[in-house]
């Protein structure tokens, strides 16, 4: 007795048989479609950015050089020196040495603050884990990607450097760019 598979049947799509004009088109058609883009670009004007005079705008979520933040109202540092970023960092490039706030010398809002906060940007892989780990949103990845320097040690960014606004702002992409 023939078995009725019912609605479980799935129709399999099979490729057309090779050969003929259709076969030739199928063989070269996609290549031609690609070439259309290639030739099309030849007609466009060049897209060379005159870096550093002109800069490539980045996406808002671009992960560039880190920034440390302060509270806008009190001016206190957000970082409490908890070292969680250092724990999360796969490149092991963050060093935090904490110290205690005193009433006369208050740096952060909590009991402790980062007396030393250093990121060795020559080792950083810009993965953003530090930003994810931070319980206070004290460190975020900024947009700055211009960090080259003549000296390796200059790539160790201290707390003051990370707290400072970058000298020049990196352009952001607009909505539809």
């Amino acid at each position, binding site marked *: 007795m023939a078995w009725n598979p019912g609605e479980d049947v799935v129709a399999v799509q099979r490729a057309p048989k090779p050969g003929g004009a259709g076969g030739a088109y199928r063989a070269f058609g996609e290549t031609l479609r690609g070439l259309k883009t290639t030739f099309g670009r030849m007609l466009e004007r060049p897209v060379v950015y005159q870096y550093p005079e002109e800069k490539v705008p980045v996406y808002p979520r671009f992960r560039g050089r880190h920034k440390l933040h302060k509270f806008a109202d009190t001016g206190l540092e957000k970082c*409490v*020196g*908890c*070292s*969680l970023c*250092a*724990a999360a960092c796969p490149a092991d490039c963050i060093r*935090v*040495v*904490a*110290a*205690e706030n005193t009433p006369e010398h208050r740096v952060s809002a*909590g*009991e*402790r603050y980062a007396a030393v906060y250093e990121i060795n940007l020559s080792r950083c892989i810009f993965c953003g884990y530090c930003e994810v780990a931070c*319980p*206070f949103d004290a460190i975020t990845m900024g947009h700055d990607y211009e960090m080259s320097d003549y000296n390796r040690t200059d790539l160790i960014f201290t707390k003051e450097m990370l707290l400072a606004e970058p000298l020049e702002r990196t352009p952001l992409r607009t909505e539809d760019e």
Partner: protein
Amino acid sequence: MPRPERRFVTFSIDGREVSAPEGVMLVDGAKYGDVEIPVFCYEPKLGAPVGACRMCLVEVEGIPKLQTACSTPVKDGMVVHTQTDRVREAQNSVIEFLLVNHPLDCPVCDKGGECPLQDITFGWGRGISRMVEPKRHFKKPLELSPLIAIDRERCILCYRCVRFSQEVSEDYQLVLNERGASTYVGTFDGHPYVAPFSGNIIELCPVGALTSRAYRFRARPWDIEGAGSVCTHCPAQCNVEFTVRDERVLRVLARDNEGVDDGWLCDKGRFAYQAIHSEERITEPLVRDSESGELVPATWEYALDVAAAALQAGGSKTAALAGGTTTNEEGFLLQRVVREALKSPHVDSRAGLPQVDLGLQQALAAPGLQATIPDLEFAHTVLVLGTDPIDDVASLDLRIRKGVRRNGVKLAVATSRPSALDPNAKLWLRYAPGGEHAFVAALEAAVTGSGDLSALCDAADADPKALEALAALLKDGGEDVVILWSQRLGAAPLPALLNVAAALRLEGRDGAGLIEVPVGGNGRGLREAGVQSNGGPGLSAPKAPGKPAREIAAALASGDLSTLWLLHADPVRDYADRRLWERAAANADALVAHATLLNDTLREHATVVFPAESYAEKEGTIVNLDGRVQRLRVAIGRPGAVRAEWQVIADLSKRLGLDLGVLTGPMATRQLVEAVPFYAGLTLKEIGGRGVRWQEREAASAAPAAPAGPVESGEPLPAPRPNGALRLGTYRPIWAAPEVEVSPALKFLAAKQQAELSPVDAERLGVDNGAKVSVTAGDATVLAKVFVRGNVPAGTVFLAEATAEQSATELLGEAPQLVSVEPYGQRPPVPLEGLARGARPSDDEVNS
């Protein structure tokens, strides 16, 4: 008290058949089946469980309600479930309850990353909080003491710290104030919790409520490395773990070793690490400049040349002294150089105490006569003779208290100075300072029933009835008797002590015997390594006997000896007769020293000062009280130009024409092991992290045979009669040490001189607590503050030795001593309370 025998029972947990020792709590029993039950308040070191936190709830078949696994002993055939919905629901709820008032400020909390509350919440908690109401608030952070910060918001009221204070260290200071949700930990009247063992509560607290102020915000668990080693600040030699960050020791934690410290540290061991990184540390060789007469930094080559020339010039007129923190290897190499290269027999490490006849030493060190430290906890009777453990060998104090409290050990204390253990003792006896010999002889008479007890008691100024009671306790209180005696007793009483041990048949008995408390962290090891005037390596007879420390001082002062070589020793501060030593140091032609810190003696008289390693930088072995050879391991690099000690000694030796054949630290260990017959075959690997008692190894049979038979104990001199003057008794407080003075955290505890007087004498002199008195013997005077102590025997005054200023060693000439005490200047009106609250609760306070 023989140790309890362990029978195994079988029970089922989560469907697994597990066999565990009978009577252990389910939490521990479960571990035999690899099942983990979360706990907060359970800590076996603290004694019986209290079941305060309810974290350990499990389901036991046949019992309707959930049970706390920390206080339910395993039974044969028990069926336990830890993974049912009921248990899980209970665990979730307990965590939720604990977190209701917990501030969850992990990012600023020092416990973060090593916090049981974090771990257990992560492993057994619900993961979300329903708590939106405001939490309980306390002022924070607060100082519980200068060493400990308390954050009451974080406390989960597990009772651990309170139990430690009440039941382990028995200082009875910490309590839980108020009730219900407002309960908080503190002292009852808010005074700082200062006690010799207070730091242990930092490690006990399962949350970040109690944190170390010295370690406050220094590092996170992922910033640090742990390095196991041994504390050398006192002969207890507790096992420690250094917390190291960036080549600095930031903290010291206990490294539980049942055979040594039972998992506790004293505050000196816990906080004096700061001396390692003190500003005052010597980090380069210093040589006295011939023009300016000052010590000036020099290169190693130059310093070694100058030192070698000085020692060469001294030749056989050189004397060498090794201090307590010297390792066996350093001591061994030192005595080799002095004896072999300089041909001088004068080496000593016995802190100026009388020389003990070698045969007697061998008899006292006989393997069969040694008790072990855990024996203190399981013996029938423990006699503490002539020492107050809290000052001389701190962590044993806790061990003795534990034995008394938990195992019903009968404790007898026989000292001249009132001891912190008196309140725990079944029997305490006093004898007059200077009457040690007569007292031990009287004890011998009482135990053996021969000799003139009353005359001897009279000579010792002890109570014959009490002595008879003590003898009865020792004889009839059970066979396992441990006698903890101090090297400070001197040499004369030791034959009588041996006879007491023989009469009690302690030899060859497991769980019974003698334990000597040496002076200096590695006192025992140094003697075994041959650093004593009348003993070579392995307690062998040296080729020529030398002078003991005291005679060295006299000989230096009179010019019979010319050169002094000090290895971590500071005789002027630590040894009796300070003025003799001052003269000796001043009179010596040359003084070569290895030291970590400069002191006045070195500043004024040293020819060369070599920077010495601290105990965290050293490698080598040391020997614990009961013969456990332990290993010091390098935790951090040496600062500045500091070189390894063995290397410096070997370099000096080469310049003196003797090649020691030591190129690495372990080579020195090898030489030592070869030279000491009863260490034979010992390797660093065998010593490992826990150490080995040499008495338990086969080579112990090579220990020198002691002369047999009873020893003639000689006629004791009577203790001096006060006759209007006062007898002088001295002791070395735990806080009288340079490392305490240079550690910022501990500085506030540094010992100051105080004269402990009996109320009778205080009244006679018309002085009150806090008044200043001058204590005079001959032409030496020491100024001290009066501390009236109820159970100081009338006619005696006790002064501290080795304090930075006004040390009693000034007054100690040829013991025994009588002194006169006079009120000094104006008496400041100091109220009675508050003053007595010094580094430790006095027993008057405990008793009142």
